[in-house]
């Protein structure tokens, strides 16, 4: 990974998520009223609009909902990574999140493939949740 990779600008909604990822956990909001998880983290639940939310450590398991193999990089920061797989992961708990699939063989990635989170440190503050096929 190039050192120029853009890093997230953390805000009050996302701080607990990024802090947990940095500590090796996948924490996403869980609604105390409707009982549903959501992602990305918000101040109100996008399902029932309650603000009774708490971060919950989830399994880190899910499946590939869809993906693309980038044959051209999204800017110079990603030039060394090509070809790379950007995917939408559907977590076991329901929400979808974007991430990378770490693989030596992008052609093996397919919709429905089972995946598991792996944490990759990018800076002193930021650790990304990537996924590998299981």
């Amino acid at each position, binding site marked *: 990974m190039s050192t120029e990779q853009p890093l997230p*600008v953390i805000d009050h909604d996302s701080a607990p998520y990024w802090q947990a990822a940095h500590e090796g956990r996948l924490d996403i909001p869980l609604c105390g009223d409707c009982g549903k998880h959501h*992602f990305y983290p918000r101040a109100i639940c996008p399902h029932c609009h309650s603000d009774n939310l708490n971060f919950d450590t989830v399994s880190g398991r899910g499946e590939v909902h869809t993906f*693309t193999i*980038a*044959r051209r*990089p999204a800017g110079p920061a990603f030039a060394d*990574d090509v070809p*790379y797989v950007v995917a939408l992961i559907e977590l076991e708990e329901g929400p979808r999140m974007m991430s990378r699939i770490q693989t030596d063989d992008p052609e093996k990635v397919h*919709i429905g493939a089972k995946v598991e989170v792996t944490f990759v440190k990018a800076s002193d503050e930021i650790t990304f949740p990537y996924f590998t096929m299981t």
Partner: protein
Amino acid sequence: MKNGRDPVIVGLADAPIEGGKFVTKASVLGHAALVAKAAVEEAGLTLDDVDGLLTAGMWGVPGPGQLATVTLGEYLGIMPTYVDGTNIGGSAFEAHVAHAAMALREGYCEVALIVYSSDQKSLRSRNLGGRPSVLSMQHETPYGMPTPVGGYAMAAQRHMHEYGTTSENLAEIAVATRKWAQLNPAATRRDPLTVDDVMSSTMISEPLHLLDCCLVTDGAGAIVMTTAERAKDLRTKPVAVKGYGEAHTHWAIAEMPDLARLLPAQKAGETAMKMAGVSPSDIDVVEVYDSFTITVLLTLEALGFCKIGEGGDFVSGQRTAPGGAFPMNTNGGGLSALHPGMYGIFLLIEATRQLRGVCGDRQVAGAETALVHGTGGTLSSGATVILQKD
């Protein structure tokens, strides 16, 4: 029932481009002003008659373009009393027609001017890959998501998985659209194109190839709307705005409710067709946003021209090409005519020209009712307009 305040389109103009670049030497706002002036003058009006101004500019963002109507009004030297800077991406202009129609019916304005201009090709500035990694994009940009193509690729991948749609199906759209471009002297790409050419073009973001993607060009266009009553004294034959609808669902692609189904188009299309009292079988000519080939396929399904999942079959056999059963994107579309960042206004211009019957070699015989559908963002927003020959 007809009403004197029913909204109509009475003026049009677009800027000449060659090799995808503006021919005239003027700034991006200069091109906006030149097409605005041409469009009002075509109708027999002047810029001083304009009291409604609608635009979605991206001029020097985060600079002046942040307040697009204000910037443009100043440049034109006018003081509009109805403004709308709705920006929902490339579909903004279909939404502008809807909003202008409501303002005209309400008596809130008399002459509405909708304008777009971009010199992105001349500036070589087309790169949305650097979306700042803030708010929802902090969960997208760091992963190297190629934007906007990556989101469309993910939708195509999902459609292929669920319905067995193929790259050949998508290529059929690019090829048929090129055939229309070959009939349009103003189109940028007019060289022959085959399904094999599309399939063997460079892979950009799987499963989308280079020739599944729209062009990057300059472009400027303007539309003038007024009431049916006012149009009686004007030079052009008015085209009636019979129905409109709009919707959006997401910005980040991970938030798209169903990646194989274009809900904004379904909702906007239903609303617009119900208002106009038409169904898909009543439409003579269709102009739909073709940022990518998959955009067209998802849009045709969502608007009800075929069943969900059957878009691949629907577009095969060059059905949408000149001479085919389903005339679509008759100027050569964003894929082959022009695509200056946001393309929606050009869909409206082409549909209106078809209903005026001035399209020469590419004229669809007997075109009386047209459907225009814009898509913006990353399959984020949709806005439909139904136009009818008066």
